């Protein structure tokens, strides 16, 4: 057998699950879709003493919008459900567009929206996207609940702000402002692989066609999602031209510090970052300017 022995608990309520986490602390690991944790256990890179399986918690599987127009996604909602959900497509087209790029159909059948976020893999699309969309995460423990902004959630490689007794239960995505465009651009070797570099862009135009807001958040170039704030500051308040987009895309490398691996050198990753940033900004601004992208 591949994984090391562990005690298996499959609670049927969130309260019960939280109780087990309080009791076992760092010895316990939460099992969501398992599409990252199980391989790590198969390799024995992870050897939790107690596995708390959330798959029986139907209450954590939902997609709805609240009265303020915020999109709410339950942490145990499977990727394929998000991928095929009309509310997500309308409310958060960036998420809708990203879903088919996440892993493979078989992994999307099982993998969960919240699991991908809680795992905090710097190569995971949803980490960068949630930052770009100003998402917030509802974290529960027996001590109470707290909402953590996506921007403050990812602390490092596979490290999030979640405490050992906490469960990420819900993701909130604020409503899209009018004249907002989006894009996700990636360089991927094969469909099945993580991106060598990826970037999500979210931009908003004002009534005078000037850039009101622009966000570029990268994946696979650091310990977590990396936002290039200075590069996008160049765009704010300006009328968008191809030259300006190019200049901003060139500037991203000053804020990035990727590492090399067998697939890509630092130099190549930085090159990809510039090219993908330009493409993402071009697409996002074109969408913001198009008449069909008024917010729902």
């Amino acid at each position, binding site marked *: 057998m591949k994984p090391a022995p562990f005690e298996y608990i499959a609670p049927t309520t969130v309260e019960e699950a939280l109780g087990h986490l309080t009791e076992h602390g760092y010895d316990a690991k939460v099992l969501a879709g398992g599409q990252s944790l199980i391989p790590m256990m*198969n390799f024995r890179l992870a050897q939790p003493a107690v596995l708390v399986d959330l798959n029986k918690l139907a209450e954590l599987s939902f997609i709805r919008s609240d009265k303020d127009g915020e999109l709410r996604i339950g942490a145990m909602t499977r990727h394929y459900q998000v991928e095929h959900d009309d509310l997500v497509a309308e409310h958060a087209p960036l998420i809708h567009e990203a879903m088919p790029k996440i892993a493979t159909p078989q*992994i999307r059948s099982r993998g969960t929206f919240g699991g991908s976020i809680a795992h905090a893999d710097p190569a995971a699309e949803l980490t960068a996207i949630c930052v770009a969309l100003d998402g917030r995460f509802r974290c529960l423990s027996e001590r109470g609940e707290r909402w953590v902004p996506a921007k403050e959630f990812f602390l490092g490689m596979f490290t999030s702000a979640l405490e050992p007794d906490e469960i990420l239960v819900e993701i909130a995505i604020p409503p899209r402002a009018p004249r907002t465009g989006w894009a996700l651009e990636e360089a991927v070797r094969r469909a099945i692989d993580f991106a060598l570099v990826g970037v999500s862009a979210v931009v908003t135009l004002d009534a005078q066609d000037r850039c009101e807001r622009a966000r570029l958040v990268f994946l696979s170039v650091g310990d977590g999602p990396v936002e290039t704030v200075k590069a996008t500051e160049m765009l704010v308040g300006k009328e968008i031209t191809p030259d300006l987009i190019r200049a901003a895309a060139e500037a991203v490398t000053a804020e990035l510090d990727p590492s090399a691996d067998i697939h890509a050198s630092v130099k190549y990753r930085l090159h990809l970052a510039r090219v993908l940033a330009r493409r993402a900004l071009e697409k996002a601004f074109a969408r913001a300017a198009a008449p069909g992208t008024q917010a729902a």
Partner: protein
Amino acid sequence: MSKAMDVTVTVNGEVYQKTIEPRLLLSDFIRHELNLSGTHVGCEQGVCGACTILFDGMPVRSCLMLAVQADGHEIRTVEDLGTMENLHPLQEAFQETHALQCGFCTSGFLMSILPVLEETTDLSEEDLKRALEGNLCRCTGYQHIRDAVQLAAEKMSSGGES
């Protein structure tokens, strides 16, 4: 130490009751406990797709699930398709287009493609590519597998006898 647990799983319409350790992977459960060796195990890290089965109708990697998680659920494996004498149209199509050489990846491909074709046989090029992207084949170069899916779609859309 992990204590053994009782599970009841429906596989290919048959109900199985077993007592297993929680750390037993679903792929190993299917092969070693149920002796259904059609489900192959390649990488055991979720990359190759050889161990793909249908879990409550959805294609999943059985090496990335624990067998205890299948308690009360329904599974279909490649054994649920045709028999040697009476192949499923999808298996026929694989045979007719030479969509396999060593055959190790084949059951995974079949179980990934089956739910796609059961939903619709009207596949675009993009649909076809998407349907295959979660499975690796080291022999064929994929072209013949694509041909097989197209042929299977024709067979299945004409309500072809299997």
